[in-house]
């Protein structure tokens, strides 16, 4: 399929040139297989949730895979990612072990957060993925701070900060982009415009048609891309990441996409018309990429079969690991508050001198 890139404000020049030249067949297949695995992962996570195998909630990005994959597939371990509640798969794409990810869903001590954060709110220190709070857009400002550190340390690592259309209404979103512009920071803001913020239409979040327009107010390029076209996203992201690595500053990428399911597993999403959902399902990024690869003789059903079976085995192992892993002891509630132990302070209430 033709890659659709819309450039209302800044022109992502030469993206077609540089961009596509880089996309060799292996990369195309990697983009596809990664999306497929993300899909399998999340559909599995949803089933486990429906089966009440873990507590809490889950926020699936099913239908949006092309955006996360196209942006994050080539990031280095040193590059930071600032995810939101909907970016669980960004962890997988960046290389977080599935055992850690499912431990996170299950709230086990084998989880990076040792059972503290809600499901899908996953971070991973070894790969510089910020453990998200739930405050919408807060990760953008923390990401901006990491980008500032990269600039001060004069390295060429970048930060990719994800958020949604609803997040753009918060002052935090503005403050992050404005500061990144002023300081010309190595950060890429990826706004996944899936048309809805819980039950609220994007039309009630902003008067403008294209969120990428907002970059004009911050003095750096903004570009709208078909978020269901992984090749288009990859090209646009590639250019933005290179620009950031080379001191060219931030980019705002608006990826127009859609979440197939409710805001979370408990949301029937009655506020959307069935027609709208159907239209978007015909734009399935994975099916689209299958067609694209087929045209280029890079796809066979058998290959997909093999990929799926192999990955499902990985998933099953990770799930088994998580289910066998212990939960935290109740008293561990008192740990990791400060750099010193607070158990003592809380249990026998005589103050201890922190070791420091």
């Amino acid at each position: 399929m033709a890659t659709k890139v819309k450039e209302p404000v800044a022109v992502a020049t030469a993206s077609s040139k540089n961009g596509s030249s880089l996309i060799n067949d292996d990369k195309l297949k990697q983009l596809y297989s990664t999306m497929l695995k993300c899909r399998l992962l999340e559909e599995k996570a949803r089933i486990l949730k429906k089966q009440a195998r873990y507590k809490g909630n889950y926020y699936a990005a099913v239908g949006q895979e092309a955006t996360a994959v196209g942006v994050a597939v080539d990031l280095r371990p040193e590059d930071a990612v600032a995810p939101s509640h909907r970016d669980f798969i960004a962890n997988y794409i960046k290389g977080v072990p599935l055992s850690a990810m499912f431990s996170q869903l299950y709230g086990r001590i084998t989880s990076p957060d040792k059972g503290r954060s809600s499901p899908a709110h996953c971070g991973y220190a070894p790969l510089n993925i910020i453990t998200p709070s739930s405050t919408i857009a807060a990760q953008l400002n923390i990401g901006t701070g990491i980008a500032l550190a990269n600039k001060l340390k004069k390295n060429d690592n970048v930060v990719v900060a994800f958020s949604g259309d609803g997040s753009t209404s918060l002052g935090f979103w503005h403050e992050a982009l404005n500061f990144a512009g002023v300081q010309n920071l190595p950060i890429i803001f990826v706004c996944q415009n899936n048309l809805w913020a819980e039950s609220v239409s994007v039309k009630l979040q902003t008067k403008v048609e294209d969120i990428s327009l907002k970059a004009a107010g911050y003095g750096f390029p903004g570009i709208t891309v078909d978020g269901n076209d992984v090749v288009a996203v990859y090209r646009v992201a590639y250019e933005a990441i290179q620009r950031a690595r080379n001191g060219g500053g931030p980019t705002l990428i608006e990826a127009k996409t859609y979440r197939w399911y409710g805001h979370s597993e408990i949301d029937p999403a009655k506020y959307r018309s069935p027609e709208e959902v159907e239209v978007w399902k015909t734009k399935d990024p994975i099916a689209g990429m299958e067609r694209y690869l087929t045209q280029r003789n890079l796809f066979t059903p058998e290959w997909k079969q093999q990929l799926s079976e192999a990955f499902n085995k990985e998933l099953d192992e990770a799930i088994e690991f998580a289910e066998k892993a212990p939960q935290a002891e109740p008293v561990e509630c008192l740990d990791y508050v400060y750099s010193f132990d607070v158990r003592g302070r809380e249990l026998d209430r005589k103050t201890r001198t922190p070791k420091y």
Partner: protein
Amino acid sequence: MSVSYIEAITTGLAEEMRRDDRVFLIGEDVGVMGGVFGATKGLFEEFGAERVIDSPLAEGVIVSSAIGASMAGLRPVAEIQFADFITPAMDAITQQAAKLRYRSGGSQTCPLTLRVCYGGGTGGGLYHSQTNTTWFAHEPGLIVVAPATVADAKGMLKAGIRQDDPVIYFEHKRLYRLPTIKEDLPEGDDFVTDLFHAAVRHEGKDATIVTYGYMLQISLQAAQKVEQETGASIEVIDLRVLNPLDRDTVLDSVAKTSRLCIVQEDHRTLGIGSEIAAIVAEDAFDCLDAPILRVAAPDVPAIPAAEPMEQFYMPNVDKVTAALHKLLQY
């Protein structure tokens, strides 16, 4: 017919909106969806998009627009979906709403009502469970209420909407559909409760529990348990109002019982209980026969998602019972 806490909120809103067309609602998901918990269900259909406004995802906008609209003569009822996300409205609430009357020498006011959904114990984890009532109880100029019963859920909401001051109305998500607290309520306008007094929910003479919100349920159960076990009688006070505090009801009770146990869901340090303890230690010292005990959550940043740690965190009947025994044996 007996209604739930959340039904009381919905009908309270509907009645005030029918009674007074200056009343309108604004918040995230309050319109088409009727609220993430359903508190505004049906109101969009009855009153339309102009009076039930789905706001952008911006708590600061929700509160500030309510401030401006109320200055201009309307009676907004704004909603904060989760107390955990109230921070973007911190300036609007504490620096604008709380201070407008004062800084304008009484010439400008903002009679808004802000509904805030708060509280833990539902597995909501770090960011869907918080109790940050202290931030607002600390701010003179705000009337802060936390209804613990179905009658108060309705009566205090209606009173809040009619009150000429900004009212922060903390509603505990765990009470919304709790079957055991359902009540029959009189329909209609006349049912408005007061916004300034604590309530004695259970009379007693040997010890006093002071609490609010969902913890009232825990406290009543613990009191009953201890009464059965020891024959002592425990008075249970529901603060109802967190700012300005009703000192007298608390002091009168302690004067009678000489023993005080405070139960709060918030962590220990600087929860509402700290001020209650300070008031009693200052103005009812002579009446006290025992230390003032506090049953509270431990001083950790928030409630972890994993059940064992959440259980450890939450005050419960056993913890309150143990404190009462300690208090009575003192």
